């Protein structure tokens, strides 16, 4: 039972992070390898807002979320806008370079020590006992709930609202979308904003649960196989991929070797790339040259 709970929590983490990868890739065909760092930035944003609004935790969390969304749009506006039309490799490398820059800058600003934003805001994180003898922390429970909420919201946004439909159109055929009066730069910036917002939200929740230091970016990188296994341009795929990767990881750690933790997602990824490179639900596409 505990294993099932662990899988659910880990899958939620991976799914929440990988929806950011999927959103950015689906709309602008760019793989953002800085997602882990952006997620961490969101969590550090909470550290800052928590010290500003220590009395009102709700305000602090909302401000951190807004900050993350603004960061995403800013990243697009300042950096990625210049990379549109460049080779895929250049865009991916730009995100990698951004990740390195952010990592250094974050250590400079907030130091490398472990931070506990939950304690700063006065949240406590009691253990909840579930039927069947499994236990998990409140924030983990919140994480699972948040995952469902985010995916429902994204589904609603992408299929029911004007901007969501514009976003899908831009992803499908950017030139045609531009012809029909869709502002591509605005749509891309919005996609980056939402992606970093969901990433930041994940970062905030993980930071509240387990503390915050420079290792968080690794979780972001580990979540990325989940997105790829499901298919880089499919949100349903990201969800399934997250469940598959999380199941494999939890089971292998439990039954084989705890050291495997860092490598399991990549093993699953390699297997998937050999069998079906475009993922479970992804669309087969003409893959690009360097």
């Amino acid at each position: 039972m505990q294993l099932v709970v662990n899988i659910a929590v880990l899958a939620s983490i991976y799914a929440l992070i990988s929806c950011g990868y999927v959103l950015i890739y689906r709309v602008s065909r760019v793989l953002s390898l800085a997602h882990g760092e952006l997620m961490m930035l969101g969590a550090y944003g909470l550290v800052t807002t928590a010290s500003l609004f220590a009395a009102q935790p709700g305000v602090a969390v909302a401000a951190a979320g807004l900050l993350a969304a603004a960061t995403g749009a800013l990243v697009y506006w300042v950096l990625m806008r210049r990379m549109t039309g460049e080779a895929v490799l250049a865009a991916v490398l730009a995100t990698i370079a951004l990740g390195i820059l952010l990592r250094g800058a974050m250590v400079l600003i907030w130091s490398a020590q472990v931070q506990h934003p939950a304690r700063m805001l006065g949240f406590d994180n009691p253990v909840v006992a579930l039927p069947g003898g499994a236990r998990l922390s409140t924030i983990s429970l919140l994480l699972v709930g948040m995952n469902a909420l985010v995916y429902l919201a994204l589904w609603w946004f992408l299929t029911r609202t004007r901007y969501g439909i514009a976003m899908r159109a831009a992803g499908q055929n950017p030139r045609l979308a531009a012809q029909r009066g869709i502002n591509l730069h605005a749509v891309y910036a919005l996609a980056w904003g939402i992606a970093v917002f969901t990433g930041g939200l994940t970062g905030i929740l993980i930071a509240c649960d387990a503390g915050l230091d420079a290792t968080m970016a690794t979780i972001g990188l580990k979540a990325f196989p989940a997105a790829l296994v499901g298919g880089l341009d499919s949100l349903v795929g990201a969800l399934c991929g997250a469940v598959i990767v999380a199941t494999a990881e939890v089971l292998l750690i439990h039954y084989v070797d705890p050291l495997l933790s860092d490598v399991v997602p990549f093993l699953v990824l390699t297997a998937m790339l050999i069998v079906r490179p475009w993922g479970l639900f992804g669309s087969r596409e003409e893959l690009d040259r360097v």
Partner: protein
Amino acid sequence: MPHASGYFRTTYGQDTRLVDTRTQRVAAGAFICALIALPWLANPFVLDLANQTLLAVVGAVALMLLTGFAGQISLGHAGLMAAGAFCTGILSKELGASIWLTLPASAATGALLGVIFGLPSLRLRGLYLAVSTLALHFIVIYLGHEYETRRGFSTGIVIDPPRVFGWELVDGRAWYVVFLIAAGGTVLIALNWLRSRTGRAWRALHGREAVAEALGIHVPLYKLLAFVASSTLTAMLGCLFAYYRGFVSGEAFSLFLSIQYVAMVIIGGMGSIAGAVMGAVFVTLFPYGIEWLVGLVSEALPEMRGLQNAVFAINYAAFGLVMILFLVFEPQGLAGIWRRVQAYFLMWPFKQKPLSGGGK
């Protein structure tokens, strides 16, 4: 190389020549003399820097062959280096093997891994290929870690300095000679490959695969060959690196190292061996330059003394920033800048836009 009044090459022999004017010959001779004289003039710190740079040159040239010429992305360069280093560490620890066994064994491991890294490239392109090499990087590092913990070397494998012809290689100068031969050899091998059939096939692959195939180039074979060539060189680099450090540990081969090598290729300029060398020099010396700058600043402004503790983070941030600046403003890299400077002097007093992609 374009000269003031045009190309003067009239035969194939001239076209494959590496240095073709007297000035170039003199400059190349002077450069080689300076390289040979360096260890007798430099202090140990500079010598260590030179050694690191020469090692980086080997890796950067190897990656340049793969990425800059054959057009295959690899984010697993550090994994290949780790494979060579672990191969050396394991053989010398378990069998007490000498460098004459570990170096070829590393090369063989590298070649094998090159095939494994290269196999996905037959099906995947671009982004997906980059991702698969990234995955293999983590798998190789995991296997290395696994060996370390299983055998109880959890902090790393210590390697004795190798003996070559009765000499024990411990001195920085002796290593300098070894690395100079390795780097010079790698550059020469790369240049020779590139002006022969193999190199032309790689360039054709980079240009467009379908056309390359129509021209009679065996695409899978040459793709694999590019991976094998690059990873063999890289694994041998890993072997030398392990001996030089006297110590092998998975931590030394992080993803950041892979990215550094990719940065060397990007900053140096895609599709240029000279660019790979310049990129290697730039990226290797960059952190020391930053450290020096930070030292200057904290000396001038005593209230900024705290910076000295943050050198590591500043390095990271500055490195990312420089990489972004090159990607955005100078995609041709240092080689592109060099070409432009050259064109400026050649054309003076006239001005002409640099030939895009021209020259070597």
